[in-house]
């Protein structure tokens, strides 16, 4: 059963990685604007027919 020590160590380490990833995302400003990117992604590069109405 001593393998448990190792497994718990792994799981805590993994969880810590996720926590750090979250901190990195916060610092990077990924949560500052949660609306605009959702609209931005819908734009085509160039609409095929500009005069279409």
């Amino acid at each position, binding site marked *: *059963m001593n393998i*448990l*020590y190792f497994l*718990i160590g792994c*799981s*805590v380490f993994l*969880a*810590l990685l*996720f*926590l750090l990833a*979250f*901190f990195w995302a*916060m610092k990077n400003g990924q*949560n*500052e*604007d949660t*609306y*605009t990117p959702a*609209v*931005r992604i*819908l*734009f085509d590069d*160039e*609409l095929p027919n*500009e*005069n*279409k*109405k």
Partner: protein
Amino acid sequence: MNNSEIQGQVEILTQCFHCGNDCIEDQFHYDERNFCCIGCQSVYTILSENQLCNYYSYNTNPGKTQDSKSTHYDYLDEPKIASSLLDYADENVSIITLYIPAIHCSSCLWLLEHLYKINASIINSRIDFLKKQVVITFKHKEFSLRELIRMLAAIGYEPVISLQDVVKEQNKLSDSDIIKKIAVAGFCFGNVMLLSFPEYFGMAAFEHQFKTFFGWLNLAFAIPVVFYSGRDYFISAWKNLRNKVLNLDFPLALGIAVMFIRSIYEIGSGTGAGFIDTLCGLVFFLLIGKWVQERTYHHLSFERDYRSYFPVAVTLISEGIEKPIPMDELKVGNRILIRNNEIIPADTILMKGDAVIDFSFVTGESAPVQKILGEIVYAGGRQINEAIELEVIKPVSQSYLTSLWNNEAFEGNKRKIDTFSDTISRYFSIVLLIIAFGSAAFWMFDDRAKAWQSLTAVLIIACPCALALSSPFTLSAVLSIFDKNKFYLKNTAVVEQMAKINTLVFDKTGTITAPEGFRISFEGNLSHEEQCMISSLARNSGHPLSRELVKWMKINEYFTVSYYQEIPGKGIEGLVNNKMVKIGSASFINIRSEKKDTGTIYIQIGDHYAGYFSFRQCWRQGLKELFTKLGNKLNMHLLSGDQDSEREFLLPAFPWEDQMHFNQSPQDKLNYIYALQQKNNKVMMLGDGLNDAGALKQSDLGIAVTDNINNFSPGCDAILDGAGFEKLPNFIQQAKDAMKVIYISFGISTLYNTVGLYFAMQGSLSPLYAAILMPLSTITIISFTSTATHLFARKNKLT
């Protein structure tokens, strides 16, 4: 009617391709498209030249009407002013964040992020849609800041550049700190739960070697929760203790501390598993409650004062040379130049030029006021005629208008909102301590160990987690219900404040009057032909009163007008049907008028005076019913800065005649509110303009009423969209119901505490009970408060 006399024209109304307003076909025609004005047409021209017509593909009529404002941006060439606006500048590139209120749809987003197509010197532009901000990176050597702003204005996205920097103020608000704390607490909570389960389910004998290991690991996870995530509770409790106040943070901090210490003892001595899981869960839920409570609107500002209305710079004339200077360098005695559409920043004396000042923002009165040479012109007005020269007589911060903000009375008069949980927690902490020490004393003689156990157990189980969460969750549910009904509160404490209101004070113009639409009446006699002549002339003018007049007259036949002339602030004239027609003020027509009312326009046809139109503002829809409903429960008052010509029109709707006051200066309004408060009234003030700002600030609850929430609104506790005005009684009722929900959930959480206390006082509290009871009570409270609040909202017709 003789058709040979009237050259009737049939006109087809269509929609402006740019902004969607009604417009007359073929008046402004370009590229087979119709526009309502030259402004819209020129925006289209710029966009089509730069292959940016996709703008019109994402939404139909995405633009906003272009009123022909010509603003000077010369001041942006002053290095000092420019550098204060830029976020970053090096030798080649500059970065600036601009606040653009016109941003409203995906087309705006698309266009503003493709600015580089218009000018290659713009490297990058990025929008934050909800904040209505755009960050632009540009090469300032090829393309100056002034050119950039001018280009934005030309395509209909003029940024607001004001003395109080809206952008920097908004970026200050950031909740990232509390989110980090929640993340840490959540991380620890999850891991601790995982490590605690084996203990609850019982371990086989050979697994007991893990027990100590899990215990110490749990303790390690508790350290960041107590010392990082839960830090604020200790700080707040300590600060309040020093001020001899017991707030809710005191029992919370005590609970956290006791749990932590007892866990160290139990794990260290190997006598138990400790309360680490309860501890982490408690901090995690508490922080979520706090986060919910502190949620704010990023796109609204409640702290604005005159500075966000005033521009950053003004044109100074010294020795005949015009030079833009920053506003804070403006001194008494300086001579300044105010061009058409610029705002007068200080109290001044008119030295040169024809001043026609629009004080609509300050007083709410829509008709402009004419000033003569040597007359004092107060700050806040907008010049709507040719450029004028003024001499400053008072510094910007001490003018008639702005001194209200700098009034020292406000400094010491910061209203402390006493919330329900503040009141409760005072008694709660005392009762808690009595029970804890009482049960400890009871066991003291029998069993020393049990005394210590019951003391700590009481403090742990009575930790008012559910109580601390009931207010935030109820109030934030109310906030989001109000939000859907276009009523935006500054914070959750405002709801509690609103439930206590017993007196309502209304401003008149702009608050209870509808934003558009006039009641127009005519005194005199006009033939149909003459009516056509007046309508034909008036439709040439862009003045709001002329437009209203044309709309009201509903005449579809027009004469051709020649020799048309518009004299700003006076009137319009032109040759119609071989007769000279004049429409305008009394002095323009050269007649004497006893009425000194600005809502009146006089008509002269040929040589004879034909009569006058008087314009009265309309009340908002359902105003009478609203007043009746509110008047049943609350004291009603009405304050107006205008003359009392409207008194008789108001009386049918507002029957409390002696509580209706006219000719009130901003200071009078403030004093009136103060006097009401001295009589122990809780006053809610509804106002709109800068002239109400002092009163809004003084009142217990100041609500700014606006018809466009992106427009300037003075500092206040809440912003009410004109569309939600009718629902005012419902809002007040909902606030009262929300308080009921808080009281009930307080009862529920006390019930849970009593059950827990029963075990705790016997000294037999197992960590398992605590670990079940705490989350259970929390979840009950969260689900109860949000369900009950939404049920009340349905009852109050606020869904």
